[in-house]
């Protein structure tokens, strides 16, 4: 399967668009793309957004700690090529509320998984990436307490879709709270949808 090809320019265009939608902050922290054994990540140079490149296993370079955590995730989960830490409002609210998000919508069950759990920890701490990876087992997103929703995928488009679906499901969690509570999709059906989606998707990608 041919992986999506990226360079600093394409990553920068995407980064600017994510900032415009409010999915990531103006500093663009929390967004990175892996290309082979390199990671592209945003930096501010003289107040302007730019893209820096880091070798995945280069421990010598001084980089923000979130970039280091992303590298650890890329190293341990080879299928992940894009990470977006979504700051969208409903995602942030559910991350702050600290409770695992159930599958209230079927596209969430397909793209994200049977739930999105919340992990708490310190981004400065290297061990924290272990907790995040645990939260990502069979799932494409995990909520990080007080921080946002970390969305993962093999391509930028897919990571964006994961972030959008996570936001919509989080909105369902919040909105249904005021309407007497939401009815989650049955766990077996959620698993079934997830498996069928992944099977169909892998076939489509292989085609």
């Amino acid at each position, binding site marked *: 399967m041919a992986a999506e090809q990226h360079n600093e320019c394409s990553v920068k265009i995407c980064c600017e668009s994510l900032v415009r939608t409010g999915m990531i902050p103006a500093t663009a922290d929390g967004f990175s793309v892996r290309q082979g054994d390199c990671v592209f990540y945003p930096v501010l140079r003289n107040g302007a957004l730019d893209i820096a490149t880091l070798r995945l296993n280069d421990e010598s370079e001084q980089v923000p700690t979130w970039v280091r955590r992303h590298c650890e995730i890329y190293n341990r989960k080879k299928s992940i090529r894009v990470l977006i830490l979504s700051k969208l*409002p*409903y995602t942030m*609210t559910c991350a*702050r*509320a*600290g*409770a695992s998000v159930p*599958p*209230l*919508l*079927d*596209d969430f069950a397909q793209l994200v998984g049977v739930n999105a759990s919340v992990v708490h920890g310190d981004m400065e701490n290297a061990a924290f990436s272990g907790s995040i990876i645990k939260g990502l087992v069979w799932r494409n997103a995990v909520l990080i307490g*007080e921080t946002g929703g970390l969305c993962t995928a093999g391509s930028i488009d897919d990571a964006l*879709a994961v972030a*959008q679906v996570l936001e*919509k499901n989080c*909105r*369902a969690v*919040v*909105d*249904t*709270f*005021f*309407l*007497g*509570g*939401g*009815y*989650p*999709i049955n766990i077996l*059906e959620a698993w079934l*949808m997830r498996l069928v989606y992944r099977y169909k998707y892998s076939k*489509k990608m292989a085609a």
Partner: protein
Amino acid sequence: MMDGRHQGYHMNEDEARKLVVESGLRLVREGLVSRTWGNISVRLDNQSFLITPSGISYEGMKPENIVRVFMADLRAEGPYKPSSERALHQEIYREKPEIRAIIHTHQTAASAVSAARKSIEGLTGEMLKVIGPHVHTAPYALPGTKKLARSAAVSIKGSNAVLLANHGAVCVGRNMDEAFRVSSALEELCAETVKTAAAKMSGNDQMTEDRVLALYLELRTGRNGHGRRTA
């Protein structure tokens, strides 16, 4: 607003195909769907309708990709695979002979409310005029199944919109513009329904989206949006 020529009852197949493609782009532009989700159809005559294909993005869709499906047996004409929700469109066209356009969206506010599996009753004013007296939620069923198609057709009786539990919404009209107006009104209605419920809970009738989020956080955690503990 689309070209009025395309909105009438008597359009030929080519015009109807173009209308479906334009409406697909409109779905994306208005944020009602993303990727290849959702679907759209136009009734061609009493025997068939045109529907969006499966697995082709709205941006890349061409009139020749649109699939003609026959009402009697759901048989599709041509090389492209029709949307997996074609049975849902078939059942609704049968249930409502007066309608000529159906859009199935994954619009945000309506999808969120669909997870509460509740009906919205007693619509008045503009909402009554555009949507009808109520919006029911069709019981949950797996996407693409006959069960979902049947329950949506039953639940949309007497209205121009139905919520599909844990899935999205279906909006119908005598033409495409009307179906889009229903969809936009439904989104507003669902957002307002949540704000009204939140206002009742908080005693503050000036609810904005930000206040709804802050109230949720406060009620769930005892903290406000800034992380401070409330009294």
